[in-house]
């Protein structure tokens, strides 16, 4: 175990996988000489050279497609988007090509690759640079969507994603890059599709992913002061979703709050609460409550931005309501 940042954990995962498999390469804007816009690829150019750590022009659609083609011929591309906002330019290759190539080719071609980069809101960067778009991607059969909430998960999940034989959408969180945590040294893999109970509790289940997991844990500490013991479940992988762990928790607590930073309309919370209704209706003592980002483009002004984002206070209030303590 070492205490390292979320950023360093991702870096370690890539370095270890690149050392293990010569077919793994990293490509994206500013990943090589600049060591990454967010320094996630720090030192990789020095370690692996310019053939395996490659700076691209600003051409998201083109290099995303390059990744798809390279993966179809047996390479293991890691394609970095500086942020997922910019991946919108590459959606055609991700959705129309990577996700369906195996199906369309009757199983002849696979696309074993990772698209990764920062998602979610950053601080004060406005409408075009503060979006949580995991629900768009998770909607597509053929894609896996992974979102680590802490350094150890970041490492274990990224290593597993690079080894996965299908296309993985790996969404990091810019605000979490500097978070420090205990991370196992060397080989450490977390299977995709496994949720993690980050805090055990008996009174209400809070399902939250990515940066919102931290918010949920903070809310749980607040709630504990009032005698409400919240169980915090982090799905870690959005698709495939570990429904079993979520339902098992709800079976125990009989109440659920689902938190996400993204927009409420057709969001991840809508999917999870539908699953709870379908698979755990009899366990519920109260309706599932969603806490989400507001359905507005992200504003720049500090006061408006704070209102647009979900808050710990909103999670606490939702949990109280679910527990009939509002």
């Amino acid at each position: 175990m070492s205490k390292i940042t979320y950023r360093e954990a991702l870096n370690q995962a890539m370095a270890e996988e690149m050392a293990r498999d010569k077919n793994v390469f990293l490509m994206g804007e500013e990943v090589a000489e600049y060591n990454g816009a967010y320094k996630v690829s720090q030192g990789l150019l020095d370690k692996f050279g310019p053939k395996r750590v490659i700076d691209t022009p600003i051409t998201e659609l083109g290099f995303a497609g390059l990744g798809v083609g390279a993966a179809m011929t047996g390479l293991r591309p890691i394609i970095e988007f500086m942020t997922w906002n910019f991946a919108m330019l590459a959606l055609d290759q991700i959705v129309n090509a990577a996700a369906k190539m195996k199906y369309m080719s009757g199983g002849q071609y696979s696309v074993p690759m990772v698209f990764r980069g920062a998602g979610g809101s950053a601080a004060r960067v406005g409408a075009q640079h503060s979006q949580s778009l995991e629900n768009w991607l998770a909607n597509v059969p053929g894609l896996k969507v992974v979102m680590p909430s802490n350094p150890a998960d970041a490492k274990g999940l990224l290593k597993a994603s690079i080894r996965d034989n299908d296309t993985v959408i790996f969404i990091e969180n810019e605000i979490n890059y500097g978070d420090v945590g205990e991370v196992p040294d060397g080989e450490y893999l977390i299977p995709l599709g496994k949720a993690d109970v980050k805090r055990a509790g008996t009174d209400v289940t809070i399902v939250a992913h990515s940066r919102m997991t931290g918010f949920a844990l903070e809310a749980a500490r607040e709630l504990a002061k009032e005698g409400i013991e919240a169980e915090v479940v982090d799905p870690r992988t959005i698709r495939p979703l570990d429904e079993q762990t979520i339902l098992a928790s709800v079976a125990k607590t009989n109440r659920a709050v689902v938190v996400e930073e993204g927009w409420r309309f057709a969001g991840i919370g809508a999917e999870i609460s539908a699953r709870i209704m379908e698979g755990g209706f009899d366990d519920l003592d109260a309706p599932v409550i969603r806490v989400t980002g507001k359905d507005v483009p992200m504003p720049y002004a500090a006061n408006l931005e704070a209102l647009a984002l979900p808050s710990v206070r909103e999670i606490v209030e939702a949990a109280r309501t679910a527990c009939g303590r509002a």
Partner: protein
Amino acid sequence: MAAKQKQDAGITHDGVFFAQETLQEMHDQMLFIRRFEEKAGQMYGLKKIGGFCHLCNGQEAVCVGLNHAAMASDYIMTSYRDHGHILARGADATAVMAELLGRAGGVVKGKGGSMHMFDADKNFAGGNGIVGEQVPIGLGFGFSNWYKDDGGVTICIMGDGGINQGAVYESFNMAALWKLPIVFMVENNQYAMGTSLDRASAETQLFKRGISFKIPGMKIDGMDVLEFKKKVAEAIEHARSGQGPILVEAMTYRYRGHSMSDPATYRTREEVDEWRTGRDPIARLESQMIDAGLASEESFKQKDREIKKEVAAIAKAAEAQPEPDASELWSDIYSDPIAGAYPYPGKVG
């Protein structure tokens, strides 16, 4: 005789006469943008401006030269490096500063910040944060000029990094195919973030990028406001006269890092100094004016003091403004309130 001399006072640059008042105005506008950006940098350091903040120090001649060549009715749009362009377009500087500070009186009510400056009254359409995004949008503005036959021209600005986006070439082709009145303008400041031009472009002579679309190209010194104004006016005239689009490569340099968080270690001090002290557009115009006997070192110093004072007053006034009202969170999403788009019944928080 003395009166006539005064009337004729000015500089003839390559056959184009610039009157003294025009020269002074160009100078003052460039210097204003320079001091405004310095103030913005300072305010960022004090954490009064948040997020991404891209300054245009060094690129002032492009902003000012362009706006002396374009008509007020022409359309202009650019990337996130937009402070200088919107100021040169004549937007209210207090509103621009208020936007940087996220205040209610900002050009877009505090909703956009540094990267999303708009002023529809001045025909300035952003302020676009996704690299290359404004190019197909500019195509649409140019299409509208053509469709309405309004005699207007669209000047669509992108960076040397932005010109690599695929949609740029889709736009070039359509613009040329339909002979739309568009000036595509690359601000070649030699870097896209930490990537120098030659590491991102197979063809580094960017004005040639339109050749296979039959779009003529011009490379213009963007550090010389007189030269830039003259040449870009020719480009605009080309587009306005119905000959179709043209591509302008403005050779320039940003003195600061890409954004406030970039230490810019990818270039040498000598390189920056070469541009900064050797080719600075403000110093250059000042010495041209002094040589022509149109101004003095002292008059420029005095002007600078005035501008610094003015910028300080603007910053103070902008800072005194309130933040936007909380109700603004839910406004400007749709033209009419749509059921389901607004706070949910029974919502938490």
